[in-house]
């Protein structure tokens, strides 16, 4: 228990307040995407960009992943590629479903 009695070195309060502020700013930006009613490719790319920036800041700084060793960082981040593959598969699947639905609605089955 000796190690628990000494103070651990921690990061300065400034970095947390900075990230906090940045998260507020980027949340405002993503809200403004809806406020100004951007549509189409611009809307989708802005939404995804702000989303990834916010997620990255939370994981890297608030969840301390930036300071963790590569062993755990790799174990946590590589499985995300499986999710991306799943997204790609289901995109193709849903487009096929949409196609067959339209086809049968038009031809009457």
């Amino acid at each position, binding site marked *: *228990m000796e*190690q*628990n009695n000494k*103070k*651990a070195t*921690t*990061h300065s*309060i400034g970095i*947390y*307040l900075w*990230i*906090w502020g940045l*998260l*507020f700013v980027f*949340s405002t930006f*993503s*809200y403004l*995407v*809806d*406020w100004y*009613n951007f549509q189409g490719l611009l*809307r*989708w790319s802005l*939404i*995804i960009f*702000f*989303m990834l920036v*916010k*997620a990255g800041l*939370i*994981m890297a*700084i*608030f*969840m*301390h992943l930036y300071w*963790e*060793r*590569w*062993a*755990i960082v*790799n*174990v*946590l981040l590589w*499985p*995300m590629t499986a*999710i991306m593959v*799943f*997204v790609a598969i*289901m*995109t193709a*699947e*849903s*487009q096929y*479903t*949409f196609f067959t*639905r*339209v086809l049968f*609605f038009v031809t009457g089955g």
Partner: protein
Amino acid sequence: MSDIDISKLPKGSKGFVHDFAADQTTFKGVPWGKAMMWIFLLSDTFIFSCFLISLMTARSSTTAEWPYPSEVFGLTVFGVEVPLLLIAIMTFVLITSSGTMALAVKYGYERNRKMCAWLILATAIGGLTFVGMQAFEWSKLIFHDGIRPWGNPFGAAQFGSFFFMITGFHGTHVSIGVIFLFIFARKTFRGDFDTGRRGHFTSMKSDYKAIEILGLYWHFVDLVWVFIFAFFYLW
């Protein structure tokens, strides 16, 4: 094992090989509770991903018009239609509670018991505010707008089931987090992490590392909301 001086180990990709080739623990300098919380959060990521991917699949395969979230979740304030107002406020409340949690972890490691406990309490109150606003949102959609899991007046029938499932599952996570935050605020105020007092359920001694593990869960709840906000409310 946890006493290992990780500053002496190789870093980066060399450290990656070194740690995975080690004959004892792989995650050097990571307490087992923290490693287990990360693994749990990874599995939870997959659950939420499945929900959001099925939302994508349903939305892009339906021939019916998908309800426009900007209007469905808009509020009229003093006669002015404001899109997604409540959702935006909920987002800021959750980010704020994430910020207070990050500071609680910092003060915990600095063994500043009172600061840490007050910040955990602030985080819990932020979470409670979020759940309260979500309850308001749900009741408005159910009683005022008539949205049901099997249909709604705005468009595609699947909208309701996805809304209740995704935000409900996230809200459950927030609620569980709030309960644990209140418990940990009490434990911290009492000084459990300084005296090594044994936990009521676990009967194990604990220290301020527990605050960081709780913090990981809470930041994850905020992280998931970032994705729900993007894909359900904004898309």
